[in-house]
């Protein structure tokens, strides 16, 4: 052995209370799945207790991607801390930026101009589509459908190009800022989004044609990974998982933010409670997002994209040469940052995975005293023992895919 001695065995003593009696007698087998496993969508380790091929219990072990985001954010000024939010859920950077900015805006009572609100909605829905496309590709790949992955990535690329066009970065955007946006979108933006809207509905039909009635896909998804509505509530499961169990709960409808109440869209729900229902809900969500983007593009007003409140939002570059106040504000904002009134707020947005919350507490200084990101992957992963019980090992892979976890989001 020699070289491999560092690999330690599973210590049954520590996990005695989590496995069944039979594991202690050696009748069932404990098997490590992960942390390095392509189908775990990141670095997730699952400890499976198996009776033959059947999962008796599943003990998720997380934290491999813990990067101390909250600690780091508490050591930075409010503006600098925003950069960290991109890295949480790296498939939903715009949504993370928005959640953090909404918390600041609520605490500071900062206004956001109309144009910025509409652009935020467009970008968020594009982000939702891109996240669902990656989910569609990877989870279909887990169930051995190779081509959907390639098609999904093709369309996701168009969205990432749009993000690069507006923010300069494909993924780590930091484009949504407290009080509005970093800057206005370029002139090509409108055409790019219109082109995307024109091609996308047909492409969604294409994905559905490959999967929705595909017998192999149905056999791997129908009736697998069931979770009933009551358990969704008990375990705090949100997002598509909850909607696939028949609960029409969507924060964009029930607690609207950024002007979502102005748009006409449906909350897709299913009552199958299984992997297939989650797939159908997400595909339908792509179509609903397209509807929202179209409405927003048709009513995109002209005007400023940043609040005029100079205590929180830096002045435009053009003013720096002519206005002494602008120079002072610019200097103050980029050296010591802004301060927020003492107090605590909690805001939540609907991320592609579920409820993404930000708990922000200020002590009146320029740095957040406490920022806690309540992430949907963390909440949804907790229900893994419930979802996998009694299924085959091969189905565990499909179930992980169906709850759409992002480990950066989970481990923070």
């Amino acid at each position, binding site marked *: 052995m020699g070289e491999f001695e*560092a690999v330690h065995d599973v210590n049954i003593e*520590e996990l005695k*209370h*989590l496995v069944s009696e039979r594991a202690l007698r050696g009748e069932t087998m404990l098997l490590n799945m992960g942390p390095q496993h392509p189908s775990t969508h990141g670095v997730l380790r699952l400890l499976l207790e198996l009776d033959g091929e059947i999962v008796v219990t599943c003990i998720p072990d*997380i*934290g491999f991607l*813990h990067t*101390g985001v*909250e*600690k*780091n954010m*508490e*050591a930075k000024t409010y503006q600098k801390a925003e950069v960290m939010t991109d890295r949480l859920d790296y498939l939903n950077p715009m949504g993370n930026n928005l959640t953090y900015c909404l918390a600041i805006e*609520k*605490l500071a*009572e900062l206004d956001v101009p109309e144009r910025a609100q509409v652009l935020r909605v467009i970008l968020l829905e594009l982000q939702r589509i891109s996240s669902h496309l990656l989910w569609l590709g990877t989870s279909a790949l887990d169930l051995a459908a190779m081509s959907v992955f390639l098609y999904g990535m093709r369309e996701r690329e168009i969205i990432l190009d749009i993000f690069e066009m507006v923010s300069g970065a494909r993924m780590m955007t930091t484009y949504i800022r407290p009080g509005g946006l970093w800057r206005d979108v370029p002139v090509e933006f409108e055409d790019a989004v219109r082109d995307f809207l024109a091609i996308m509905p047909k492409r969604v039909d294409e994905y559905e044609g490959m999967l929705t009635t595909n017998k192999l896909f149905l056999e791997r998804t129908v009736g697998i990974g069931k979770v009933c509505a009551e358990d969704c*509530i*008990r*375990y*705090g499961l949100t997002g598509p998982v909850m909607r696939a169990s028949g*609960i029409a*709960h969507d924060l964009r409808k*029930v*607690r609207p933010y950024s002007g979502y109440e102005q748009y006409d869209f449906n909350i897709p729900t299913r009552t199958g409670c299984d992997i297939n229902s989650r797939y159908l809900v997400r595909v339908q969500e792509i179509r609903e997002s397209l509807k929202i983007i179209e409405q927003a593009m048709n009513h995109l007003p002209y005007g400023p994209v940043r609040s005029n409140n100079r205590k929180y939002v830096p002045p435009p570059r053009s003013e720096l040469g002519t206005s002494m106040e602008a120079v002072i504000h610019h200097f103050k904002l980029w050296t010591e940052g802004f301060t927020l009134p003492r*107090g*605590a*707020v*909690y805001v*939540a947005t609907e991320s592609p995975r579920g*409820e993404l*919350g930000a*708990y922000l*507490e200020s002590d009146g200084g320029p740095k957040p*005293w*406490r920022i*806690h990101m*309540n992430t949907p992957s*963390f*909440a949804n992963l*907790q*229900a893994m023992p419930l979802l996998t019980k009694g299924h085959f090992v091969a189905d565990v892979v499909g179930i992980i895919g169906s709850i759409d976890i992002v480990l950066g989001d989970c*481990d*923070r």
Partner: protein
Amino acid sequence: MDDETRVVVNAFQERFGAELVEFRGEVTLVLPPQQIVAAALAARDEYGYNMLMDATAVDYWPAQAPRFHLVYQLYGLGHNRLLRLRVPVGGNAPVVPTIVPVYPNANWKEREIWDMFGIRFEGHPDLRRILMPEDWQGHPLRKDYPLGYEEPQFSFNHEQILSTKLHPKE
């Protein structure tokens, strides 16, 4: 504050000695630690706050009494209202009763609080570290825990850094 929330607040003030804080339209009730389980149970069964959305803690170091605040976000799916419960706890190694029997998803959230802040939950079924390695010393989100850094390795100090590093084999 709407009328329904007012009813809950009045009941909690009477039964659990809760203190009301209202800020930016959000209702927070500050409760003594021994009341948290009873209060959570009442919120869930009597007032329809059937989901625990978030649980976290805040460290007010160097203040000692109370040093920590536990923060619970409750949400009622039926009536679409939020309620925040805050529990001040004193001392450096506090122990608080767990609310896992009331809200099962408090399990991981309390494990995270234990991991990050070192607040123990009495009666928790599985109180292990969750994000940090199991043999980690200290609780990183405490305010007296340094942010820490690792010296960047360049060619001129590479050997020196490597010699001071612990090797996993040793």
